[in-house]
């Protein structure tokens, strides 16, 4: 037997010699005790999540039970629910209601816009069209968020391209009528809640499309044929087969759009009215006002809202088809 044969392990016995060295010993150890490998792989993320992430979340929660002395501006480190009570003051309740309503509207609109796109991608797009779909959806995510938001500010401005375009279509009256409405209206789209809404939907849309597309991708085409074969017209097939099977994807997407809208503080600051959203309130209270306890209490609101949202979704059976 030549040396080359021996190193390659050919023409050797039934059991090959140990590879030797540290790497070889380590491989053997991991093979004998798979749990060691698992532990080594999980330790860093568990430390990160457990200590750094959950720890800071806990610190935040703790802060929300402190209060601020209104005269001195100093934080009083005694347990109190006073700060939470402050959330229920009309001005703060207004902020919460505004943000939750906006998040709900953005989520519903995203789902309605995303579904046909996701359906097309899952059912019809093949080969290069599928690649084009992914690039089209992901491309906006690769460019800076601020650039996109400022671009929208220009698009929605009074002298912007949208106004110009509607003018060309002789639809300027439609825009004016919309802007004259209370609450959703304003001087121009870029300083109205409508503008904030449009930009939110645009920015979070990919987070809705991709989960719905993934859910629809797993629905076999012959289920739709079977439904139609059994006498269901397209609307009935959508209601009874397609929608329930896509629901986990819609819920997954809505978790993104809903929570991202609840927490965002940049979009409503650049595009919209001067009225605050939760994110902006947190930013203002922990920064200039120095009211860390109230900022912390505001931060707890989206967490609680999301908790209720997921609980409700589960009760509706949104995760049954998973």
């Amino acid at each position, binding site marked *: 037997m030549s040396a080359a044969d021996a190193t390659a392990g050919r023409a050797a016995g039934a059991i090959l010699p140990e590879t030797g060295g540290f790497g070889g010993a380590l491989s053997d150890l991991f093979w004998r005790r798979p749990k060691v490998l698992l532990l080594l792989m999980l330790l860093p993320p568990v430390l990160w999540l457990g200590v750094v992430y959950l720890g800071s979340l806990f610190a935040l929660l703790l802060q929300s039970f402190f209060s601020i002395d209104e005269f001195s501006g100093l934080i009083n480190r005694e347990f109190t629910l006073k700060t939470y009570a402050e959330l229920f003051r009309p001005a703060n309740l207004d902020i919460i209601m505004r943000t939750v309503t906006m998040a709900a509207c953005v989520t519903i609109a995203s789902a309605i816009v995303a579904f046909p796109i996701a359906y097309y991608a899952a059912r019809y797009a093949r080969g290069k069209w599928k690649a084009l779909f992914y690039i089209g959806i992901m491309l906006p995510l690769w460019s800076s968020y601020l650039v996109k938001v400022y671009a929208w500010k220009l698009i929605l401005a009074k002298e912007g391209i949208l106004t110009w375009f509607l003018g060309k279509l002789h639809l300027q009256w439609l825009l004016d009528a919309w802007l004259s409405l209370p609450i959703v209206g304003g001087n121009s789209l870029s300083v109205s809640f409508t503008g904030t809404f449009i930009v939110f939907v645009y920015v979070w849309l990919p987070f809705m499309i991709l989960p719905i597309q993934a859910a629809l991708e797993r629905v*076999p085409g*012959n*289920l739709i*044929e*079977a*439904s*139609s*074969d*059994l*006498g*269901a*017209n397209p609307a*009935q097939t959508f209601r*009874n*087969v397609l929608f*329930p*099977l896509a629901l986990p994807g819609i819920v997954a997407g809505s978790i993104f759009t809903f929570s991202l809208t609840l927490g965002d503080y940049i979009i409503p600051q650049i595009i919209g009215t001067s009225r605050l959203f939760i994110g902006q309130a947190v930013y203002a209270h922990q920064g200039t006002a120095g009211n860390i306890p109230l900022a912390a209490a505001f931060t707890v609101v989206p967490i609680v809202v999301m908790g209720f949202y997921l609980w409700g979704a589960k009760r509706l059976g949104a995760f*049954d*088809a998973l």
Partner: protein
Amino acid sequence: MTIAVSFKKVSRHFGSVRAVDAVDLDIGEGEFFAMLGPSGSGKTTCLRLIAGFEQPTSGRIEIVGEQAEGVPPYRRNVNTVFQDYALFPHLSVLDNVAYGLMVRGVDKAQRHREAESALELVKLPGYGTRRPGQLSGGQRQRVALARALVNRPKVLLLDEPLGALDLKLRENMQEELKSLQKSLGITFVFVTHDQGEALSMANRVAVFDHGRIMQIGSPEEIYQRPNSRFVADFVGSSNVLPPDFVARHGGERRWASLRPEAVRIVEGEAGSLEAKVVSRSYMGGTTRLGLDVDGQRIYALVPAGHTLPAEGQAIRIGFTPNDLHLMDEAQ
């Protein structure tokens, strides 16, 4: 006989591929009709044309005397048992079976009652509360059957209904489907690539190849008197003999088929042929001999109990002239 399904010069092209090519076909009411052919022969497309999932490129389709072109699947009183069953994973077995009644607006109590009796019909009473994912392949097949039958369709279409089942289950289902069809009197049209299944279940068989029907007839006709080399070869692995060989051995100068079970081992009778055993495969009830006869490969089936010649041995074989079936096909 009333006609349940009628094809008149029906074609379905996919680009340059002629999946179904000018097919003429009449299926009688109450028939158990089989569409037999290799994959890509157009049999499944024909089924999908009846169901309405495909529209013909040209030609006319009538279902129980009514024009069916341009009519969507949900307006056809025709139901399909899909190859992989296509049960709705998010619905219980009972709701799966009741689906067709539900979309037609039958009230809940009524449709659950009918679905339960349909489950009894397919011998799955009391399975209604389960999910399709909790059933075995054979049970899913039965649910798919109940889901289609509960709508009392004019025609029931079955797409390779037994393809995914193991042998024992398949034989049971074959018998059950036959007796079900007999007792319900519904027209069954089923697609298969398994010639044994087609011959044993159907009243009439259409053999498909390249989008055309090569032969339509009763199982006996198809098996004993194939009209072409393709049919002879596809239905039951017949010996297909070329014109030269047939002419040399006392026949007309035409292609002919010879069933392997018609070939007998004989002891020097007049008209017998000299043969050499090339291969021998034991198949339980019979043994298949591969023979070299005058340069032509001929297979013979020898029933169990006969003494078998060894490989390489020279023997003599014979068959009655009636067994040599001359085919219409010239080439």
